[in-house]
């Protein structure tokens, strides 16, 4: 009799234990750090918490090293030193800086200058988003715009040297560095066997793996007019990057300016686009191409992206019309 009661109580205990423990096994580690003048949030999943924490620390090292060499605003960075001395002179660079510049130049060429890393003089003079923001003089704009200076940056792969053949060139990697850093982080995480993660590099998202065996990650696209998210993209192993005129702004003499410059005019781009979102395998590509589509406008921008394999785009114009490339369908994009 006692045995039966004990058995029943044991069975009840097991049932309670199962109910209260729920599913276990998958661990999650998340951390937010301040780099690139923005917040980076890394959320990693796996079965070994210590391994995830170690990976986050290594990620910090990756992003710190990229920021310290590629920041145009930091006077002590390797890029700043290069900009000061590379006119008509071969300057040897670190492997890291050389690779970021090469990546940026590749997309400058691919987009025929719609994305342009050689606008450093213009971006620093405008200084949008900082307390020093100002409208450059007409003379300044005339001197530094409409130049297509990407061909004035001479790279030598063998010696990793960089030379400018025009004194109007100053490299600004702000449009590619975050995407590049997110991609390097993704590569590192995969190399150490972390196959499920969400990396949020200041709004540049990399979705590694999938949310679960039967569901994709769901990444929102911010409403460019403010408020809630406007749409959501379902994806796995993709970077989702948005360039928008709402991102960083400055009011100068009562006029509000955004920070994405059009190299042909020297002024913030006026293409009728409020935001351009790129979905691609490569985060660096998505970063550069989102800027290019924003500058080009919906029609030319979507035409550019249609010609690229594995890259899709969603564009919201100033009438809040949503246009996208042919690879985007209702299974991928949900308007909220």
């Amino acid at each position: 009799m006692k045995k039966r009661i004990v058995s029943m109580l044991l069975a009840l205990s097991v049932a309670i234990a199962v109910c209260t423990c729920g599913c276990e096994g998958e661990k999650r580690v998340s951390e937010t750090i301040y780099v690139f003048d923005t917040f980076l949030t890394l959320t990693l999943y796996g079965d070994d918490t210590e391994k995830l924490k170690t990976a986050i620390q290594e990620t910090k090292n990756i992003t710190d090293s990229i920021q310290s060499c590629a920041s145009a605003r930091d006077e002590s960075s390797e890029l700043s030193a290069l900009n000061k001395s590379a006119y008509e002179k071969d300057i040897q660079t670190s492997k890291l800086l050389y690779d970021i510049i090469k990546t940026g130049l590749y997309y400058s060429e691919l987009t025929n200058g719609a994305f342009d890393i050689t606008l450093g003089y213009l971006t620093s003079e405008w200084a949008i988003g900082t307390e020093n923001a100002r409208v450059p003089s007409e003379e300044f704009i005339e001197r530094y715009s409409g130049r297509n200076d990407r061909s004035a940056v001479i790279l030598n792969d063998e010696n990793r040297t960089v030379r400018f053949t025009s004194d109007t060139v100053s490299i600004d990697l702000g449009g590619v560095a975050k995407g590049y850093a997110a991609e390097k982080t993704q590569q590192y995480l995969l190399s150490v066997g972390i196959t499920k993660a969400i990396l949020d590099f200041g709004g540049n998202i990399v979705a590694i793996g999938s949310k679960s065996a039967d569901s994709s990650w769901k990444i929102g696209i911010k409403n460019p007019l403010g408020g809630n998210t406007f749409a959501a993209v379902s994806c796995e192993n993709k970077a989702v990057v948005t360039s928008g005129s709402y991102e960083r702004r400055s009011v100068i003499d009562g006029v509000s300016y955004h920070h994405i410059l059009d190299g042909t005019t020297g002024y913030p781009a006026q293409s009728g686009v409020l935001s351009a979102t790129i979905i691609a395998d490569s985060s660096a590509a998505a970063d550069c191409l989102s800027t290019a589509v924003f500058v080009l406008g919906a029609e030319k921008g979507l035409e550019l992206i249609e010609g690229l394999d594995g890259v899709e785009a969603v564009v919201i114009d100033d009438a809040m019309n949503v246009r996208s490339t042919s690879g985007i369908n209702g299974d991928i994009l949900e308007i909220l």
Partner: protein
Amino acid sequence: MSKRAVVISAVIIGAAVVILAVISVLLMSARVDGDACIYSDGKLLYRINLDAVTEPYELVIECEGGSNTVRVEQGRICVIDADCPDKTCVNSGWLSRDIMPIICLPHRLEIRLEQGSGLDGVSQ
């Protein structure tokens, strides 16, 4: 099995069910509805569906002024450590539906409840 044994078993099982129900109600009353949203300087860093949390974890949120450590458990969230001078955020305890958002003024950090979006990130 004797009649008495059946009665005792029924009473034990009944009591266990009642205790479980009471514990569940107590736990539910301390839990929050919707997503916990963590903002730093007005920018949304995290949107966490607290019901979906399977394992407790901690978030270290660094800002230019210092850092806050946030503890996330199934159904609830709080700041457990911070290097701000007043520690108001830490002393706020767990965020529940009945109290104000957790705010750390020195670090411009805010944790508040918002209707769930089901999103894993926001591209912006």
